[in-house]
């Protein structure tokens, strides 16, 4: 059933994002040719400027749309009238939440890949491609200079932090929307306020955690070992627990306190 939910979720979101993706990749191709023509004339430069501007706008549109679709889809599909259908399907609330979470994560990754592809299509030439690949190849060496043997751990930790951070942030959004629907009036406003409160509270808690951690770390000369061995794992663990906590809040509300209009 989870597979069916994800398939349906993918269909429902693909139709919104695909046109933006296609438009951006198309614009990127056009701009690549124009870029290579190396136009220097006044009037024509104005037009090339506009085309470049459109590409930049599309890049922002995709990034913003990915986040907005995640929020609107969760609210509209689960907590507006459509919720009457979704919550009477023979599936449990875990499957409803996880299907939305996985597809959102998938689109976040695809959107980033598309944006990077767009930039590569427009600006990548044989010369600078070699340069960029060299730079990327140098990253492990550079890290090794600072972090010694820990460089691989560090790379894995950074990737994990981004993934766990994304999941945790999505869960905060979902939980805020779920908390908002507990109110009998002004549900959307209540969701936004919940998000602001949760977000700020977490920032403060995180700040305190960092202060405490740095107290422990201070006096430890071997700073480059402490970061990957202690500091980052703790941050990842905290983020993971936060995400799990908000997942349980969301699921609890859906199971026990559902209050569709």
């Amino acid at each position, binding site marked *: 059933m989870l597979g*069916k939910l994800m398939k349906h979720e993918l269909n429902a979101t693909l139709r919104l994002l695909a046109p933006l993706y296609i438009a951006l990749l198309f614009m990127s191709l056009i701009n690549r040719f124009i870029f290579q023509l190396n136009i220097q004339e006044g009037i024509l430069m104005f037009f090339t400027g506009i085309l470049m501007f459109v590409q930049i706008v599309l890049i922002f549109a995709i990034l913003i749309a990915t986040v907005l679709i995640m929020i609107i889809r969760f609210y509209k599909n689960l907590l507006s009238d*459509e*919720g*009457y259908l979704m919550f*009477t399907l*023979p599936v449990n609330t875990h499957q409803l939440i996880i299907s939305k979470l996985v597809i959102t994560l998938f689109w976040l990754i695809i959107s980033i890949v598309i944006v990077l592809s767009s930039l590569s299509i427009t600006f990548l030439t044989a010369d600078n491609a070699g340069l960029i690949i060299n730079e990327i190849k140098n990253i492990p060496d550079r890290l090794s200079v600072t972090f010694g043997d820990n460089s691989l751990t560090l790379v894995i930790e950074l990737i994990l932090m981004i993934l766990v951070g994304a999941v945790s942030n999505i869960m905060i959004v979902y939980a805020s929307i779920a908390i908002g629907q507990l109110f009998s009036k002004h549900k959307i406003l209540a969701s936004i306020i919940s998000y602001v409160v949760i977000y700020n509270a977490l920032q403060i808690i995180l700040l305190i955690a960092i202060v405490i951690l740095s107290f422990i770390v201070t006096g430890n000369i071997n700073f480059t070992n402490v970061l990957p061995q202690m500091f980052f794992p703790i941050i990842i663990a905290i983020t993971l627990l936060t995400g799990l906590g908000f997942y349980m809040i969301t699921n609890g509300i859906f*199971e*026990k*306190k559902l209050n569709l209009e």
Partner: protein
Amino acid sequence: MNPILECKSLTKIYSGFTALSDVNLTLERGRIIGLLGPNGSGKTTLLKLINGLLVPDSGSIQIEGKKPGVETKRIVSYLPEKTYLADWMKVSQVVEFFHDFYENFNPKKAYDMLTDLKIDPEKHLNTLSKGTKEKVQLILVMSREADLYCLDEPIGGVDPASRDYILNTIINNYNENATVLISTHLIADIEKVLDEVIFLKDGSVTLHSSVDDIRVAESKSIDSLFREVFKC
């Protein structure tokens, strides 16, 4: 065999307002039952509780001996009073959706009924009128071979000519093991198909009886009895 639905001292309170209080109800199989009551008497609340959209504050609710959950959702077909289909989908896509999720859904039945009511499956839902959307939903819900159908105001927004078709659909589409629970206040239209009625008043069941018994005992139609009982 368990009764299809059993409620024991079922109570639901929304922020101080008692929507249902101490409802005891046992529904047998193979019946068409009218859930009748004025606005705000708790009809929708009861149907939402049966379908797991609400959790009772006290008391219990059991469908075929099971609490509302994934298992009961497989065998209960629910028509809410909302238009719950996503607007961007085509009629054929929502048929596919139901086919995907409900094992007891029969797409052929759905397409036959769509043809009868002259609804084009290739149309998008946002191009259909409100009444037509309601017909599509009812077709989907009745195309499931369910054990319990919960229909919340199924004919409210539909023209009188289509009402007869819909009522016939309801009568003809359920098997002898299934029960249909219809909430409505359009009693006169629906009276002729009902086997039993439940009167709900301010969240309590005031009457649960077979239609024949009422006709014999009161020698009047359900519609006139309703008007009498709920006189303002």
